[in-house]
């Protein structure tokens, strides 16, 4: 079994895994980082979005070994010693979730958006969320939350 090493939320991790192990399985099953969810088996829902070397990727559509040597960020790494990240806070303030299943992926996608576009319009947010599906909220409050989160991050 190949050894896979990467940095996850700032910590170096290393494990022997079967080559077919998906990045999402590695995060959830080997590292017990279960904040990254799996909502489909067709790469469509976006519940599994993490950042790999600073850009958003679907961790269900990538092998763990493809991320060998990479810097990976998951939802668990966002808070600052228990203080929510401004984007997480914005989801709470704006009621941007109901069941919460899609939320980790939404937040990670939103952060990649803000990095590319610090002040996204409603249309920008809706287009960017093409790969993130929510079956509860109807998206309205998610869009509001992301715009509010972006504003909070601009300071």
């Amino acid at each position, binding site marked *: 079994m190949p050894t896979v090493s990467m940095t996850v939320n700032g910590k170096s991790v290393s494990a022997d895994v079967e*080559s077919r192990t998906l990045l999402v399985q590695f995060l959830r099953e080997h590292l017990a980082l279960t904040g990254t969810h799996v909502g489909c*088996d067709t*790469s469509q829902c976006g519940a599994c979005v993490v950042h*790999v070397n600073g850009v958003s990727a679907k961790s269900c559509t*990538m092998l763990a070994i493809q991320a060998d040597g990479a810097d990976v960020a998951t939802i668990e790494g966002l808070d600052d010693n228990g203080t929510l990240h401004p984007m997480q806070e914005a989801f709470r303030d704006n009621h941007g979730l109901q069941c919460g299943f899609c939320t980790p992926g939404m937040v990670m996608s939103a952060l*990649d958006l803000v990095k590319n576009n610090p002040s996204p319009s409603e249309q920008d947010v809706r287009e960017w969320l093409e790969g*993130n599906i929510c079956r509860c909220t109807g998206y309205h409050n998610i869009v509001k939350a992301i715009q509010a989160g972006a504003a909070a991050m601009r300071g």
Partner: protein
Amino acid sequence: MEYGRPTELDEALALLAGGRRTILAGGTDLYPAIAAAALPGDILDIGAIAGLRGIVEGAEAWRIGAGTTWTDLARATLPAAFNALKQAALEIGSVQIQNTATIVGNLCNASPAADGVPALLILDAQLELQSAEKTRHLPLKDFILGVRKTARRSNELVTAIVLPKRAVSGRSDFQKLGARRYLVISIAMVAARIAVEDDRISEAALAIGSCSAVAQRLSSLESDLVGRRIGPALAEHICAAAVATHVAPIADIRGSAEYRTHAAAELLRRAVANAAGTA
């Protein structure tokens, strides 16, 4: 089963010379195809070969390396002849897919619905194939042989897409029809590249995908358009009958043959109008 992830091209070619391997670039086509099953035999993962990534303008041609992602392309500053390819980039899955998926992977996967193919056919794209022994070039139209079939030999890696500069002229446009706006397999898609001189079309390149096993250029319609004055009247020459002389569209769950022919003609009218700047 062995998983190879070299950092140099030479090592990758040596691995391919040693026996058949499944090549993995972004893995976005490969992974859903195998789902949770075991990986198909030995793997060559080219994702760590830094030298394969990037778009470079040379004296004679543009070169898109095999590691270049759709996001890399969408963010690059390129001439207007690339517009169709850039529009296609934004249609590939969602942002996260565009961040990992490669343009070359889209071609090598040889799906009839691959959005990159029509946009590259109109740029007279060639593929550069390298093995440990030699390098050869094949026009894209001769590379894709059928559904999921390419002319790549098992010891070869596609290392780049090469676009001759004479074809990088004018402006291009891409139009795609799917059953919904996002995350959808195309019913039909078209790409058009038009160069204009003194209000007349001096060059036309048109391609249709998702209607036949392999996307097609529409050579007789292209010649028919050359010399015509740009304007709304162009649309009259781009009709379903003209499309039908090039492709006999397939019928499947996403649309009948007749629907596809009409849809493709309408997409072409829009793409030509946009590319000619008369929309």
